[in-house]
């Protein structure tokens, strides 16, 4: 595992986000066991108490659960994982909207720009997919 840390921000928050990203992207599946405090601390060369705190916070948010004597596991509740996705999307959106507002765009303009960008991106994806479709047809 590798992760670039920013020493200017609390490390436990960065590791929380790192684990959440792994869950959302499917690298960690629902019900998967997550590494022990000591393993992760050694792998990332991070203070074990910081890792401990990361896990406690993830437990509090019900992203991971502890099974007594067995270790910690990614939640198997899909709704929880969906909630993480929404939370992360929310952060991205907030940054984006804030950035656009700083550039002087009004909310209505932002919506238009996003619509156009999504449409452009979508057509690019379809073009990308086109050769496959073509082969299937012929």
């Amino acid at each position, binding site marked *: 595992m590798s992760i670039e*840390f920013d020493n200017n921000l*609390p*490390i*436990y928050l960065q590791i929380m986000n790192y684990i959440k990203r792994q869950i959302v992207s499917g690298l960690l599946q629902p019900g998967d066991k997550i590494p022990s405090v000591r393993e992760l601390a050694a792998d990332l*060369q*991070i*203070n*074990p*108490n910081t890792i401990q*705190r990361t896990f406690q916070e993830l437990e509090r948010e019900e992203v991971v659960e502890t099974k007594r004597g067995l270790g910690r596991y990614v939640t198997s509740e899909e709704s929880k994982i969906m909630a993480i996705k929404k939370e992360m999307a929310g952060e991205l959106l907030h940054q984006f909207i804030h950035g656009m507002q700083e550039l002087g765009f009004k909310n209505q303009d932002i919506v238009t720009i996003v619509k156009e960008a999504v449409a452009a991106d979508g057509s690019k994806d379809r073009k990308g997919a086109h050769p496959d479709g073509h082969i299937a047809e012929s």
Partner: protein
Amino acid sequence: MDTLLKVNGVSKRYGSKQALGNVSFDIGPGKIIGLLGSNGSGKSTLMQIIAGLTPSSSGEISVMGKKVGRETRSLISYMPDRPLTENWMRIKDAVAFYSDFYADFDAQKAREMLDFMHLDEKSSVSVLSKGMNERLQLTLALSRNVNLYLLDEPIGGVDPVARGKILDAIVRFYSEDSSLIICTHLVRDMERIFDEVMFLKDGSIALHEEVESIRMKNGRSVDDMFKEVFGE
């Protein structure tokens, strides 16, 4: 919170030079503490006084409630900034030396650490590079089962890759209910393994705080704080 180490009003003079002035702090169990300061700030002096190797001019220090001295020798493992091993030794002689000398020495742990550090028991201490020697000293210091470990510049003379290996070993092999005080001026390389840091400036504690709260409150790294306090 329990106190593992209590330092109360410790001062040290060398002739007319004041090396430490009224230093006080407490350390709880299970913590990795960074003792940070520029050269000549009194870090090594403080470590030696805590280790019971140098007497303080005034003040008191206790480890697990016992006054520092003969009784605390078995509670503290000290890795000095200069090797304690002799040049005639092979690595296995150095391990045997520690094993004979300290009843709390864990030979099994030493073997595991040597293996992890890629140190060959048959190598002669005199042919080890500076970095390899630091690995050996760290192995010897951490293989004792004690309550408090004092490491003086464990990554002082090694390149960045070897630093990673040493940090890895510290995190992997220290026992969780003991505490470590690590003295260094390489703040950026080490700050992520600390619970708390103490800045020692001109013989006094200029700051003693949890590293995550430094980042949270100030939005900046310990390294940046260090540069500000020490005006680099």
